[in-house]
């Protein structure tokens, strides 16, 4: 018994070591984005002939050098002040300011010289509009497909579901021609309308609506509520967890969508973040520090959304995936 316990403890330690190693591999690229985005790109230390850049130094620096050098200068400045050497203290303080400026310089540049603020806003408002649109349309459709009987219900459902098997690339060319002929090429309508047509949510909401008890719907009907009022005051509140899961996935998909936006957007003012990042990379003028800062700005909102709504991610995956 004693021996077995010790073995289990060893096992557990081994599991933790393995998992920590795997998570480092998993998170390293994201870490590298943030580390490079804040790396010092120009620093002229006390005994240096010319400024060096730690962004493309060989070997690469594993963390933003500014953090280390800032504290070095801070310590030096304090010592110099204690020793009464005000000139040297002043030098160190200037270095500290320079380090702070340089560490965040590419974020400032992205907002001032490039249009990342605009791209961020475009991405954000498109994602919000599509998310709420999808939530409304798909819950309406999912509700009647799950709870009502009417001629054509099954045919409609199966036609919608069968298109889920068709990869999105099939419609690229016809959609391009259509969007062009409708005269909405290079507008945000070209993104919003196709995104609102996605059908995954109909399937998901229909699955979810099944769990709503019929008695509640009948009670509402007996109370004399109209169909719309029943839907709005009874069905939607009960479907909140399903709506949350669908909303988060829709937001994520739209926020990250890439292939279609690079086809229909040409005007830099209308770019979404992923498209903007691609043009930034293509321009070849941008340093890796600048690119990684852009990547960091695009990554942060999704990371925050994920950390806040984690359980809905899990819910959405298992709801959409598990077939019953």
């Amino acid at each position, binding site marked *: 018994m004693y021996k077995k316990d010790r073995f289990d403890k060893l096992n557990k330690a081994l599991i933790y070591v393995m998992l920590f190693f795997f998570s480092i591999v998993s998170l390293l690229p994201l870490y590298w*984005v943030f580390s490079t985005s804040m790396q010092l790109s120009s620093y002229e230390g006390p005994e240096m002939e010319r400024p060096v850049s730690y962004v493309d130094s060989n070997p690469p620096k594993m963390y933003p050098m500014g953090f280390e050098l800032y504290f070095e200068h801070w310590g030096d400045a304090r010592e110099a002040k204690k020793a009464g050497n005000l000139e040297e203290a002043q030098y160190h303080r200037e270095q500290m300011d320079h380090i702070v400026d340089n560490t965040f310089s590419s974020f400032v540049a992205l907002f001032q010289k490039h249009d990342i603020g605009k791209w961020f806003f475009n991405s954000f408002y498109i994602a919000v509009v599509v998310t709420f649109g999808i939530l409304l349309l798909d819950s309406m459709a999912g509700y009647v497909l799950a709870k009502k009987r009417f001629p054509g219900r099954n045919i409609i459902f199966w036609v919608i579901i069968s298109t889920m098997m068709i*990869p999105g690339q*099939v419609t690229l060319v016809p959609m391009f021609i259509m969007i062009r002929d409708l005269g909405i090429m290079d507008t945000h309508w070209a993104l919003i*309308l196709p995104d609102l047509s996605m*059908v995954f949510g109909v399937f998901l909401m229909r699955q979810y609506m099944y769990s709503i008890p019929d008695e509640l719907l009948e009670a509402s009907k007996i109370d004399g509520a109209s169909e719309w009022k029943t839907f709005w005051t009874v069905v939607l509140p009960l479907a909140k967890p399903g709506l949350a899961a669908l909303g988060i996935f829709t937001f994520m998909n739209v926020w990250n969508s890439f292939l279609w936006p690079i086809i229909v957007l040409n005007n830099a003012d209308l770019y979404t973040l992923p498209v903007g990042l691609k043009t930034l990379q293509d321009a070849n003028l941008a340093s*890796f520090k600048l690119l990684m800062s852009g990547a960091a700005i695009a990554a942060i909102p999704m990371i925050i959304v994920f950390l806040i709504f984690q359980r809905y991610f899990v819910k959405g995956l298992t709801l959409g995936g598990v077939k019953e």
Partner: protein
Amino acid sequence: MEGNKALASTAARDRDLKPPKKPSYNHKRSVWREMKKNYASYLFLLPKLTLFTLFIAFPVVWALVLSFQQYQVNGSFFIGLDNYIAVFQSDAFMEALENTALFTAVTVPFNIISSLVVASLIFPLGKLSQNFFRSAFYLPTVTSMVIIAMVWRWMYNYDFGLFNHILGWFGIEAVNWLGQSSTALWALIIMQCLIPFGVGIIMYLASMGAISNTLYEAATIDGAGAIKKWFYITIPLLKPTTLYLVLLSTIGSFQVFTQIIMMTGGGPDNATETLVHLIYKTGFRDFEFGLAAAQSVVLFLIILVFSVIQFRMLRHDE
């Protein structure tokens, strides 16, 4: 006589017990009446159905039509199977097909197995550690592939990249990962393998939670060790999840695009050309709409074959 009577009485009982008969739509007028009665349901469906018809159903049909046409702004005309013949005769398409198939054949099994192993390691832990590791492994999945591709390109950089630096620790010479045709595709495959398959891990964790504990208890009594239990209980019972994940990741892998356009552009020498990147190039760089439509229909058929095979396996299992 006796039989008839019994039949009649059952019929009477059924009439009493059964809920009101489902409307049968034999009669045109009764269908019409049902439709009128349920007009609200149609109104609920209308917005989604309109968008669906305009932006999904119609383009799908049009893609099929286009694939048999020579597209011209002032009137396309049918050219039979010429586009399809051109697709299969072009070296670029065959190369793209080979690359995509290799990419899928390596990354899908690797991702499925690694996510199963990681989920199995996470599952027995306490709630807090479970949450921590689940987030650590799912975080790269919520990040846009554009971002991941940008940073990997940087990490693969020949002169300043992280990987060549790490190789240096072991005394291995620097590799021009993305710059030469012998390593470029493998660099992308390695990248795909090292990005955790977050969806897989979460789905496996959920399915493992649904396996009854009594099975494991019985196995313990029979003297089975942890490894044996894993092979004989966990893996077989997770088979439906595994099949679903294989289907999902095969389809996703056949559509690989973002990494390609962000990291290699299909080069060098078409070494990393994939199907979707080729469709993109054919359609929106060369503006060969008919050809691109035919390519995308072929892509759809390939995916369809995989889906049908895997659905059949799934059904056979149940």
